Every structure is written in structure tokens, then in C-alpha cells.
């Protein structure tokens, strides 16, 4: 029996879409019993959403005002305590999971595998290295706990329809006071979330200005798509950093990715190569983005994008 604990990411009373993807990954471990840990201030709604994911046996709910907003230094000792009796501890490869899980691994004195993209056995996994330019198959030692982050772009969300039972857990763990949350400047948006959207429209340096970047937003709204940006566009200040797609930004796997005015630097391609269909629009026919695009269109984006909008 492999007992897997998944740490749930959530915000504002809503379970993050990455959790169901972690469940998919955990389900591929043979003979797995899957539990989800919800650490929240008040977490009933999040725990109920987690319990409804198919394949989940148990939800452990830890309620403490110190748990929100989430701070890795505060969550890690609690997760480490909950992890007792589990063979594996998984979290998402989002900034939440990448921040938290190594701290958990250190407290458990366990090794960590980052960005698990495939499961071969309870100890053997595949993960990308060198920005995805190589894939390694790694074997973890048996008889020891293993911590992992799940590369969410590699996994589909597990179905709903689960009926896991929710257990409230009181933890007697000293929590540090050395780290304090001050603020988060999240751009509120009605658009779909970049990391879980089925469609994404991204703009690059060729947009030229913040004002012109509105062209990307209009097309995205027309398609019900999330908005993304290349690193060049973010560095130039056309779009906020949280929209950056690529190795150092978000790694995404939408059904449809439309890259507009993006040349296709390696670091950008790393972030989109799991997209089902890639469309590229660029005035340079030699741009590397066309090497990976399923459909390419050469021309001036300022004429083409409004034309596409009209056709939709």
C-alpha cells in the first residue's frame, strides 16, 4: 500500500485546479490510497471540493487563522506532521508548491523530485531537466518517504464524483512568527486562469506598447481565453509578470495556444510545448515559433488580429 498525501492549494475559499491534477498523478502510483491535506483559516468549502475529486479516500482539514494567507514556513511543519504514516507527499508545481514542498522535504529528511511528468512505479518517475531539453527517469530509494511536486501541465484533472470523508485534525505543532504576510497585488480578472485555461492568447514584443497589448486582451475575451505574454513583453512592461509564459514564467498545456508577435525563444517554447494545438502569427516567416506551430500565419499582427476577430 502506498499512502499518498497531497497538499491542497487554495485561495479565497476555492480549491486550486492544480489539486485535481495532483490526484491524477497520484492515481498512477500502484496500490495508492490518496489523502488531501487542506490547511486553511476556515476550510469547509475547500475540503468539500477536495472530497468530491474521484479517487480521493480522505480529506484532512486543519483549521487555523495562521494558515491564511499561506506562508511556507507556517504550513511546512503542519504538513510534515500530517505526513507521518504516508509514503509519498505531493504538491503542485505552482509557485505555492515549489515554495512549500522542499521545506516539507527538509523537515521530513526526505528527498524531493520536482516536476513529475510521468509515473513508472511507486519509486520510479520521469521529470524534465535542462528546461525540458532532456527527460530523466529517476528512481527514489525504497523504504523512505518521498516528496514530489507534480508538473501540472503534464496531467489532466481527475474527474469529480468522489465521496471522500472529511476529518478535522487538530495539530499541536509550534508555528514560527518570523515570517509575515504584508500584501499581494493580484490583478483581479474576469478572464480564465492562465494555468488552467483551455485556450490562451499570448502577445510578444511586437505588440510594442501597453495600449497595443489590449489587442491581445480583446481577442482573448472574444475566445473566452486566458491572456499570456512572452518574457520580452513582460520585461518591456506591456503585461504584468504573472502573465509570463515560459520556462521562468508559467508552463501551460491548453487545448489551443495562439502566439501573436512572439518569435519563439527556447525559454518560451519550453512553456508551451504541451499545448494541444499551437497557432503562431508573426511577420517574420523565419521565426522559430513556426517550427513548433500547428498552424502558422505570416503577416502584420495589427491587420491580422482584427480580421480574425471579425471572422469569429
Amino acid at each position, binding site marked *: 500500500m502506498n499512502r499518498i498525501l497531497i497538499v491542497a492549494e487554495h485561495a479565497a475559499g476555492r480549491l486550486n485546479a492544480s489539486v485535481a491534477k495532483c490526484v491524477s498523478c497520484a492515481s498512477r502510483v500502484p496500490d495508492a490510497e490518496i489523502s488531501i491535506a487542506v490547511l486553511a483559516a476556515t476550510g469547509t468549502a475547500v475540503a468539500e471540493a477536495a472530497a468530491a475529486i474521484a479517487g480521493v479516500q480522505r480529506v484532512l482539514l486543519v483549521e487555523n487563522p495562521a494558515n491564511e494567507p499561506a506562508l511556507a514556513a507556517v504550513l*511546512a511543519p503542519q504538513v510534515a506532521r500530517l505526513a507521518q504514516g504516508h509514503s509519498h507527499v505531493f504538491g503542485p508545481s505552482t509557485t505555492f508548491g515549489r515554495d512549500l514542498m522542499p521545506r516539507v522535504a527538509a523537515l521530513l*529528511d526526505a*528527498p524531493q523530485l520536482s516536476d513529475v511528468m510521468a509515473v513508472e512505479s511507486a519509486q*520510479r518517475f520521469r521529470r524534465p531537466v535542462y528546461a525540458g531539453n*532532456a527527460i530523466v527517469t529517476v528512481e527514489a530509494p525504497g523504504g523512505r518517504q518521498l516528496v514530489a511536486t507534480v508538473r501540472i501541465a503534464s496531467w489532466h484533472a481527475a474527474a469529480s464524483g468522489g465521496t471522500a470523508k472529511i476529518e478535522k485534525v487538530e495539530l499541536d505543532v509550534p508555528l514560527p512568527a518570523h515570517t509575515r504576510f504584508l500584501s499581494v497585488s493580484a490583478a483581479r480578472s474576469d478572464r480564465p486562469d492562465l494555468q488552467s485555461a483551455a485556450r490562451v492568447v499570448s502577445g510578444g514584443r511586437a505588440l510594442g506598447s501597453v495600449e497595443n497589448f489590449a489587442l491581445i486582451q480583446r481577442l482573448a475575451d472574444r475566445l473566452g481565453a486566458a491572456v499570456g505574454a512572452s518574457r520580452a513583453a513582460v520585461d518591456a512592461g506591456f503585461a504584468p509578470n504573472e502573465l509570463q509564459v515560459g520556462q521562468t514564467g508559467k508552463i501551460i498545456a491548453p487545448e489551443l495556444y495562439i502566439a501573436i508577435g512572439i518569435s519563439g525563444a527556447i525559454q518560451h517554447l519550453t512553456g508551451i510545448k504541451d499545448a494541444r494545438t499551437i497557432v503562431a502569427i508573426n511577420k517574420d516567416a523565419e521565426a522559430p515559433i513556426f517550427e513548433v506551430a500547428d498552424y502558422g500565419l505570416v503577416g502584420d499582427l495589427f491587420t491580422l488580429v482584427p480580421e480574425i476577430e471579425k471572422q469569429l
Partner: protein
Amino acid sequence: MRRILVGIKRLIDYNVRVRVRPDGSGVVTDGVKMSINPFDEIALEEALRIKERGEADEVVVISIGPDDAQQQLRTALAMGADRAILVRTDLAVEPPAVARAMQKLVERESPSLVILGKQAIDDDCSQTGQMLAAYWDRPQATFASKIEMAGPVVRVTREVDAGLETIELDLPAVITTDLRLNEPRYVKLPDIMKAKKKPLEVTDFATLGIEAAPTLRILRYEPPPQRQKGVMVKDAAELVAVLRQKGLV
């Protein structure tokens, strides 16, 4: 003494197109340019700026790796670090062992701040800083895009999925750098000459009393699956038509 420790990893230069060896035993490293991990360069630049603002007194760079990592440490000294420490090993050490070695040096050096890159661009683990913070039982701020020293605390703005988060940490603390924190300076020739006279200490895992042997076994390396080049469409109408036909719009 307000001291900042900075981690420096020697790895394949970020401009090199990394290729998997035909026998799957690793990636091609023969004759390949080696450099400082770009995120570590940003970490060093930030430490130097903090010192230049008078908010720190000494910047110490640490590398854990082969003898040749002395080259990267010399570059770091030329950028402006005051002294360097190499923990010499020929093993492919994993983040827990690196963090344990850093912890030993932290105990010896008593820094007020440790700044590391958010990840190394070879193994892409993104673990060492968080592990060090846990072993040391101190605060962590990962993916930093802004660092403000404020007496006994440091305020760090982090690049997170939701946007920019700002947290406050009591010192000493561990910070890992993201790309937009700063743009590292170029090294000037006179500084390279000066760097040759700066102290560079060499130690090893046995001296520090830590186990360096890897616990994870890499069975094989493979190139990633390649995407096929697709088709070119002639205009907006044709593009929308094919996307409609595939049910994508």
C-alpha cells in the same frame, strides 16, 4: 559584521543548446562552455548592491562542485564578492546535501542573509534555498523580484502565480532570486586582476562532516518528444476556418 552568503553553481552556459548523449547516460558536456547559473549571478548582484548601499559589510560566495568551479568563483570575486569558499566534490550532489553543506557554512559564518538562485538551470530542482531555510529553522522568501533591507527585518516582493506578494522576514533569512530582481553587472578587466588576490578557501564534505552521496538514481536521459512542424495558412479567414473545423473556436 553584517555578512551575506551567496550560492554560485557552475553549469552549462544558458546559451548552449543542451543535447542528450546517444547512450542516454547524460548530456553532452565535452567542449561546452560553463558559466555561473544565471539566477545565482542575480543573487550575487543583489548582495553587492545591498553592500554598496551600506546595508551589509561583506559578501561571501560559496560554490559546491568540482575543482573547476574555482573559475566561476573567481568571476564572482571579480564582480565584487569579498571572498570565496569552494566545497569540492566530483559527485553530482543533490539539493539536500547542498543545503546541508550551506547550513554548516552558515553556522560558521553567521550571515544575516543568504541569497541563492531560485533554481539551477541544469537540474531545475528549485529546492536548495527552501531546504536550507528549513534545516536552519529560519524564514524563506522564494522567487524574489524586490528586496528591501529594513534594520532587523527584510521586506521581499515575490513573483507568485497570483501576481506580486510582499512578505516581511526577521533576519537572518534565506532569499531566492527571480529573473526581474536586477540585471547583473559586467566584469571589468582590472577587477579580474584584483580578484586573483582575493581569498578563496577550498574545503570538502568530509571536513564539513556531511554525506554527499546522492540518494536518487538517474536511470537514463532521453531527448524530449519533438513537435512536428505544422502547416502555414494564407490568411485570417483560412485560420479561423481550420480552427472551427477542429472545434477549437
